[in-house]
């Protein structure tokens, strides 16, 4: 059975090579991906928003994203918003360190002790934001437990989005063609579960679609109507086929 991709948080790091803070951003992102929240997170290479294909851009629309930047240029945050969608949360390393009263890191290639501390603090902040994005209470996630109990040899590598392909469907909403991601998978899943179009199913179907797609609040009614119309057609087609 086709399944709607599990909801995960995409971590986008600037990885800025020119500053130690860029190295902090990169290592903090990797710490979250590999150790703190391995089951809840995936990563996306920032440049892939430009160089990658539709699948790469769609990936970030499918998952809520948290960006981590080394400096005020906020390349990851601005780039993600420009080429994909607005991040659920953003962290800027130098701002975070200033708020915490911590020293600036040094050593863009090999971080000094202040840099190592900065990685820890930034990673913990990111992990808390991941929990928030997934609607969980901080520190109580299953992935936390996994990180504690899994031996080092079983640690997962960061999951990369390279080549990820997520189906996109174009539907007409208020006379405009709109791309919705994972719609076919969601329909397939609801259909195979035997869900009819009663009020509860309608609500749950649309809420599921909203998890993976940004729906403008002012157009929610139109989106809902269009999605339900498409689902009815999908089910009808299944019956005939």
């Amino acid at each position, binding site marked *: 059975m086709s399944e709607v991709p599990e909801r995960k948080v995409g971590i986008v790091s600037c990885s*800025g090579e020119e500053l130690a803070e860029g190295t902090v951003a990169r290592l903090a992102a990797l710490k979250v991906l590999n150790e703190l929240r391995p089951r809840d997170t995936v990563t996306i290479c920032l440049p892939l928003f430009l160089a990658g294909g539709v699948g790469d851009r769609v990936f970030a629309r499918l998952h809520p994203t948290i960006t981590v930047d080394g400096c005020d240029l906020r390349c990851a945050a601005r780039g993600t918003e420009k080429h994909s969608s607005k991040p659920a949360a953003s962290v800027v390393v130098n701002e975070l360190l200033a708020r915490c009263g911590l020293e600036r890191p040094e050593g863009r*290639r090999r971080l000094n002790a202040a840099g190592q501390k900065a990685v820890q603090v930034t990673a913990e902040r990111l992990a808390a934001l991941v929990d928030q994005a997934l609607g969980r209470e901080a520190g109580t996630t299953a992935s936390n437990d996994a990180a504690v109990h899994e031996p080092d040899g079983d640690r997962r590598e960061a999951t990369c989005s390279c080549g990820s392909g997520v189906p996109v469907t174009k539907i007409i909403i208020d006379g405009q063609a709109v791309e919705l991601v994972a719609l076919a998978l969601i329909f397939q899943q609801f259909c195979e579960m035997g869900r009819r179009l009663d009020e509860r199913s309608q609500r749950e179907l649309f809420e599921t679609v909203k998890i993976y797609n940004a729906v403008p609040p002012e157009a929610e009614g139109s989106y809902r109507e269009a999605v339900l119309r498409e689902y009815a057609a999908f089910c009808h087609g299944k019956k005939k086929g």
Partner: protein
Amino acid sequence: MSLSKETLVVVPCSGIGKPFGSVTREAAYDLCDELRPESTRLVALAKLVLGDPDARALVAKHRAVTIDGCKQMCAAEMVREIGGPVAREVAVLDVFRRHKDLKPEGISELNEAGRKLARVLAEEVAQSLDDAVQPVKGADHV
């Protein structure tokens, strides 16, 4: 920082999802910090992606060495899009094919083989730049 006409800009992809991305970053540091510190300047790809005017101006004006960790060739694509002169486009995988004993592992912390692969790549680029009489736009991968 004022740059001479002969300064090369070095743009690694720094891909975060695979060890090959970390090799690009390490190789760029080898090249810019140790092998050719006087004649190279590291430029963060993230800045180019965002359209930072200073970073784009550097790439538009100076010959670039791009180092990529996967087939998407993000760094090379970006520099080509800006239209700056290209000295070398390097794909880590091409170098790895010639040095199969240097299999990089670890993203946060590259293993010794990964660091050696980065060094080999950086030395090859440095040597080829020294040997080059005329830069060739769109030069083949190393």
